[in-house]
């Protein structure tokens, strides 16, 4: 290994505590901690929703509480749980994977995290300040205008999301510059691990999408606080403008949440199949295609608005196009496993689970891109089922795969495989039991966001099954938390490279030292650690 001295001297952050840290690994852990905490909160809100819906005409919660719970559940899971979890893993792993001592702007990195967290706290403060927002996570105008949402909930939504978004944008700048300029010698952009590729593409998506949300939030704030008329039909404004701006952010946001998880399983599957990824270039290139297309599909969330048949047809077609690069990836993962020596660890189980569940969510997504089908099931539980197959069945299973894979690197200890299997199978069963029946509920006409339904609708039994599934999911999460805490204290010692892995993060100690590497590594291929372990069978590129 070529010995190149460190070009950056990092301040001794490990001694000054979590509040002041600027180390990318500690900030990564902070992000992940934030994501886990908000995931638990969002999960409790979901359980409240499912408990209320378990039986027809239930009165466990009143409609106002129900509206607040589904609104905050959505915002929490998307912006305060999933995004911080993904950004957290990216923060921790990207510099290690590209052989860098830290991110490009360590202090800015800390600012990103604290802004993201404060945004979340501002949103939750609304509960103490007279009521949380109750207008849905996409907060359609004119419902979100002062005339129809007179409380302060929507104002906290605006401030919370704007501050959280500023943190996310700054974080994306930081990660993009890190990936573009801080790769170690030999680490060409065509050699970086696919998780790094996905992080780069995601950063571009964040930089293109989040500012549109910020702009929309500013306009809504002007409407609510200065008496403006942007989205106020009575004053000449157009409520549909909010939808355009929001979904111009909102659809790329879906890929912001799913691409890094795809990157995680693109690391896990090759390592546990003992093969390089099949079609590296296609996995990376298809992500660029997805990112490009994702800015041209937003109005498929608005088929029912009445934009016109031509507009709907165009957006339906672009939405279906996205299935092509997405399908390419699925074949890449499967082809990687074919002929490999599979090791079905918990991480691998979750990665395979991702593929299966994400395909279901992807297919129901294609069905929703067909305008007449969308018009029939829009705003119904079919949509709820679809988005949860993508974001839980996809993203969350991917995050769990990443968690089991990288936990030993971050802590020096392995997560328990025995509890991990319980965690996986309970999650898999609970998830499908919760969300599969919702396809039928939606097709039968059950609208989303209703706090109850009449017994005569016949929706009771499927809803009851769905709630049972949610309870099983809750048990699965308890198993996961037990696994986390027990393994942190007394898990099996991992060593530097417990999985016999391929990429640079496994070449340093577990957990890595503050400066990451004793000397900056130099690489000659896509699997630098494999090359080092098998000099006789180096990768050609």
């Amino acid at each position, binding site marked *: 290994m070529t010995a190149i001295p460190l070009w950056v001297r990092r301040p001794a952050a490990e001694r000054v505590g979590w509040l002041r840290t600027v180390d990318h690994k500690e900030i990564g852990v902070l992000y992940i901690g934030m994501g886990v905490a908000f995931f638990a909160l969002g999960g409790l809100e979901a359980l409240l929703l499912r408990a209320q819906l378990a039986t027809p005409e239930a009165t466990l919660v009143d409609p106002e509480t129900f509206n607040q719970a589904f609104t905050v559940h959505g915002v929490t899971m998307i912006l305060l749980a999933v995004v911080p979890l993904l950004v957290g893993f990216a923060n921790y792993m990207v510099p290690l994977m590209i052989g860098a001592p830290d991110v490009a702007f360590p202090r800015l990195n800390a600012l990103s995290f604290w802004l993201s967290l404060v945004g979340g706290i501002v949103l939750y403060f609304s509960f103490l300040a007279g009521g949380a927002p109750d207008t849905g996570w996409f907060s359609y105008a004119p419902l979100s205008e002062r005339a129809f949402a007179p409380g302060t909930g929507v104002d906290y939504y605006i401030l919370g999301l704007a501050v959280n978004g500023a943190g996310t944008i700054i974080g994306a700048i930081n990660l*993009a*510059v890190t990936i573009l*300029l801080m790769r170690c010698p030999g680490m060409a952009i065509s050699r970086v691990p696919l998780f790094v590729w996905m992080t780069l593409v995601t950063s571009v998506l964040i*930089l293109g999408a989040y500012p*549109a949300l910020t*702009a929309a939030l500013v306009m809504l704030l002007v409407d609510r606080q200065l*008496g403006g008329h942007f989205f106020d039909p009575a004053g000449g404004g157009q409520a549909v403008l909010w939808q355009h701006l929001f979904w111009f952010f909102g659809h790329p946001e879906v890929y912001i949440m799913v691409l890094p998880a795809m990157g995680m399983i693109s690391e896990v599957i090759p390592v546990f199949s003992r093969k390089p990824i099949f079609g590296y270039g296609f996995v990376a290139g298809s992500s660029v295609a997805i990112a490009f297309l994702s800015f041209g599909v937003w109005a498929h969330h608005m088929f029912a608005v009445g934009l016109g048949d031509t507009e709907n047809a165009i957006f339906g077609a672009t939405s279906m196009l996205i299935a092509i690069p997405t399908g390419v990836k699925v074949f890449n993962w499967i082809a990687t496993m074919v002929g490999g020596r599979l090791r079905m660890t918990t991480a691998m189980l979750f990665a395979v689970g991702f593929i299966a569940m994400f395909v279901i969510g992807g297919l129901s997504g294609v069905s929703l891109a067909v305008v007449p089908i969308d018009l029939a099931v829009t705003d119904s539980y079919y949509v709820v089922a679809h988005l949860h197959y993508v974001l839980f069945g996809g993203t969350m299973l991917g995050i769990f795969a990443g968690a089991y894979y990288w936990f030993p690197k971050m802590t020096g200890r392995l997560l328990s495989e025995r509890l991990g299997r319980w965690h996986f199978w309970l999650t898999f069963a609970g998830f499908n039991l919760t969300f599969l029946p919702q396809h039928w509920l939606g097709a039968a006409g059950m609208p989303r966001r209703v706090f109850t339904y009449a017994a005569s609708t016949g929706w009771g039994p499927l809803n009851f099954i769905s709630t049972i599934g949610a309870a099983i999911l809750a048990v699965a999460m308890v198993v996961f938390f037990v696994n986390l805490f027990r393994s942190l204290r007394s898990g099996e010692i991992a060593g530097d490279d417990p999985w016999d892995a391929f990429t640079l993060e496994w070449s340093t100690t577990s957990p890595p030292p503050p400066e990451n590497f004793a000397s900056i590594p130099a690489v000659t291929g896509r699997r630098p650690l494999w090359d080092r372990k098998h000099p006789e069978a180096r990768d050609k590129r």
Partner: protein
Amino acid sequence: MSRAVSLERSPRIVEDRVLLGVVIFIASESVFFLAIVLAYVAYRDAGLATAKANLDVGRTAIFSIALFASSGTMAVAGRTRSRAWLAATMILGAIFLAGQGSEYARLLSEGIGPGSALFGTTFFTLTGLHGVHVLAGLVALAALFTAHLGRARAVGAVAWDAVSFYWHFVDAVWVVVFSVVYLGTLL
């Protein structure tokens, strides 16, 4: 022009972290302004009569020239590391803000505000957000000026470039805003 100090050469954008970061930040800011400008354009017809009756294009053009000129003084300041040119840039920027402030005062006294009608909502949001960015630019210029006091070599080329990129961006946004909002009333 005489050069008293030997100047550190600017690094290339694609090689320097700070410059690349600033460029990416500006790209993301452009999306933000694009959304606000599009909202203004979407509502242009509804507010056109009010805009024609109440906007003083000639007067604002003069203040706009001050802002456009400040990009030129910034370029000279950056090339020569001159505090005088930097001060000129700040003064021109402040003149522009003063002009905007006096126009706001006049419109508000005539009963046109962000809540009065669609024109007021879109006008004050778009020009106000731009004004906030000019103010942020002035703060950055002031920081550069202070850091530069008496120790010309201490401020790196990157800091000069980063601040001037941002200042040129704020100026460029005004080219669009002035065209859409003010020159648009002449059509």
